[in-house]
């Protein structure tokens, strides 16, 4: 019967696309009526329905072998607003549904109304904001109109910002305000770009604009300016290095369930729009120089984010900086798009999915560890491996995907990027990917080497996590880890609805020898060396008493790195860098084009 229902639903075609937009809005509105202790269960039921809807859409796209279209109210663009789900959107919808369901199960406990109270603001705020984020990001994935996408992005930001400040401490309020103001700067730049597009072409529909841009012999100067403004505005929301001033305090200060959503999903919404702009709207405008500017920023993000992560003493801050580094991988794909856009897109989408699952698992694992220990100081994690074996295991498995060890999704991403980089002669990308993996391995093993040894804690833990929470964290980590084992045909789903690429089969060609023994060994042995080094350093540290604070050399590279990070996260510096970046992108497009 279920199969028949599934088939009936798939026959709905384009109308299906309304479901992922309706469910969160229904949740938002009904949450005000449901309230109280049942709200968490209600939201969970909606999230389950959402997962089913996303699965049906993905199945419909895969079996129909074409994108689903829907025009709201039957009005065709340019006056109406179109929705479209190609393979890429379908995969993103599915990932969002899976991660949000995981977060929903995890948050049942933390955001439940305590017995005896009719309702709490914290619980109502969390579940409504979660629905807001869900609706915003689904609209980002489906919208085909630059202005609709603007509204969707704002919905996403406005739901994400209060999540940061849910506990009302002054640090988190300040972090939320910084996040909001910088994101607003980004969105106003995006809007300015959209306005320039409208002024030039008289429409905001992506498909119509793409035809107009592709058909033009010479582009009016407003187009590169608009493209640069929109891209940089979105970069501010995606927090690509060096525009990361708000990310570490916001992601590290939020409650764990909220951090997971912010890090795994919210920053990917704006990245998805960057993909739409550069791969759908104006693929021809992505000159090699412009692509290399984005790629260089991504490379800097990987190295800088990982190095700063190594310096952190708090687990959640470490994970937040690791997000900064992982966002860098998303931008390495732009220089590769010159060789083959399908390889670039596949690597980008895989990285989004793998990072979403892994990072959600890691933030929630860190939340469980912190709740059990009462703090998240990395140097005092001793014994948590005994107290919370499943959680520490999940943290480690998620980390394996970030390093890029087989069989994780991260391994496929690294294999694709490395192979494509070598093919297109961009060796620096290959080196950055390898170095990034090793740095990630260093801090992951450092955390694990603190957490795993040691006896079970003598003091009773502050809060015993529920088994369901531990299991859902482990399940998300396993999703990231086993992503690499998906058959290649699953990767083909990403290609559906895109213009037939001349280089079809490029992805499978690059991935063909990913599973040979020497490839696997080649990805493994450097990580093993790093693990041995970390253990050696840790052993030495235990033997020698730690140096008292303040006696170390004032010019140590680590301290310089901290200072650089501090400098980059000053408002005036980040704001000026933003403007410089706009100018640089315009310049590269005008000169390169």
């Amino acid at each position, binding site marked *: 019967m279920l199969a028949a229902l599934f088939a009936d639903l798939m026959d709905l075609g384009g109308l299906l696309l309304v479901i992922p937009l309706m469910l969160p809005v229904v949740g938002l509105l009904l949450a005000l009526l449901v309230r109280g202790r049942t709200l968490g269960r209600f939201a969970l039921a909606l999230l389950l329905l959402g997962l089913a809807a996303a699965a049906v859409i993905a199945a419909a796209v895969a079996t129909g072998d074409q994108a689903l279209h829907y025009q709201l109210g039957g009005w065709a663009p340019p006056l109406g607003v179109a929705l479209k789900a190609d393979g890429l959107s379908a995969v993103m919808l599915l990932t969002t549904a899976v991660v949000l369901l995981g977060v929903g199960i995890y948050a049942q406990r933390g955001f439940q109304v305590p017995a005896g109270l009719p309702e709490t603001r914290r619980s109502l705020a969390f579940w409504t904001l979660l629905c807001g984020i869900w609706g915003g990001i689904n609209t980002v994935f489906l919208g085909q109109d630059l202005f609709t996408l603007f509204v969707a992005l704002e919905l996403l930001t406005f739901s994400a910002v209060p999540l940061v400040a849910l506990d009302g401490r002054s640090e988190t309020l300040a972090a939320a305000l910084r996040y909001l*103001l910088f994101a607003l700067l980004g969105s*106003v730049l995006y809007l300015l770009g959209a306005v320039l597009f409208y002024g030039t072409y*008289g*429409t905001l529909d992506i498909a119509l604009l793409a035809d107009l841009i592709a058909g033009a012999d010479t582009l009016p100067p407003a187009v590169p300016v608009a493209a640069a403004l929109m891209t940089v505005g979105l970069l501010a929301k995606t927090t690509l290095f060096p525009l990361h001033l708000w990310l570490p*305090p916001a992601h590290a200060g939020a409650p764990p369930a909220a951090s997971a959503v912010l890090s795994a999903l919210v920053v990917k919404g704006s990245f998805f729009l960057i993909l739409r702009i550069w791969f759908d709207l104006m693929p021809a405008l992505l000159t090699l120089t412009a692509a290399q500017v984005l790629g260089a920023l991504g490379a800097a993000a990987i190295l800088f984010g990982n190095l700063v992560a190594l310096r952190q003493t708090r687990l959640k801050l470490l994970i937040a900086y690791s997000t900064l580094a992982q966002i860098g991988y998303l931008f390495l794909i732009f220089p590769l798009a010159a060789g083959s856009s399908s390889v670039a897109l596949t690597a980008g989408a895989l990285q989004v999915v793998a990072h979403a699952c892994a990072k959600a698992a890691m933030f929630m694992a860190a939340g469980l560890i912190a709740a059990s220990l009462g703090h998240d100081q990395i140097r005092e994690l001793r014994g948590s491996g005994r107290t919370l074996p499943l959680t520490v295991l999940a943290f480690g498995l998620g980390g394996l995907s970030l390093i890029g060890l087989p069989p994780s999704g991260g391994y496929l991403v690294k294999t694709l990027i490395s192979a494509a980089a070598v093919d297109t002669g961009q060796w620096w990308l290959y080196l950055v990917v390898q170095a990034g993996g090793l740095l990630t391995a260093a801090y992951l093993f450092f955390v694990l080497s603190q957490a795993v040894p040691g006896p079970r804690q003598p003091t009773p833990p502050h809060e015993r996590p529920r088994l369901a929470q531990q299991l859902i964290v482990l399940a998300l980590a396993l999703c990231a880890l086993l992503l690499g084992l998906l058959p290649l045909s699953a990767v083909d789903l990403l290609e559906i609805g895109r213009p037939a690429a001349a280089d079809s089969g490029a992805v499978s060609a690059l991935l063909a020898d990913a599973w040979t023994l020497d490839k696997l060994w080649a990805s493994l042995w450097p990580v093993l060396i790093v693990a041995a080094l970390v253990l050696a350093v840790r052993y030495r540290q235990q033997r020698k008493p730690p140096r008292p604070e303040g006696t170390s050399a004032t010019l140590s590279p680590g301290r310089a790195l901290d200072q650089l990070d501090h400098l980059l996260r000053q408002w005036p510096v980040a*704001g000026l860098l933003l403007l410089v970046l706009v100018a640089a992108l315009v310049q590269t497009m005008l000169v390169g084009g």
Partner: protein
Amino acid sequence: MSGTTLFGLCAAALVGLGLYGLICQPGALRKILAFNLIGSGVFLLFGVIAQRGGGVLALAGTGADGDPVPQALVITGLVVAFAATAIAVTLLVRLAETSARGTLEGDEPPAPESSDARRT
């Protein structure tokens, strides 16, 4: 100077002033106001574009003077900007209540002692 050029220049000036304020002014309230300046500039530019025509209706050859679509978009944009301002001001009020400060500078204390000192 034609009307469109004048309004276009006004829009550019508003955006420029707003950018300056948002980037250089340390006070959070000033940043919020500066964001509203940029927003006004962008909406004014959109209005200029509507006045100039060249939108959907002109392309369709209706001979309509001006283009109504940007007005609908500007109204939506105003609502969004209003919501953004409301959230930002609420956060700022709460921040002022909890920690008695109104700037965003230096909220990354380099050493934990200084942040404790400020909170007490």
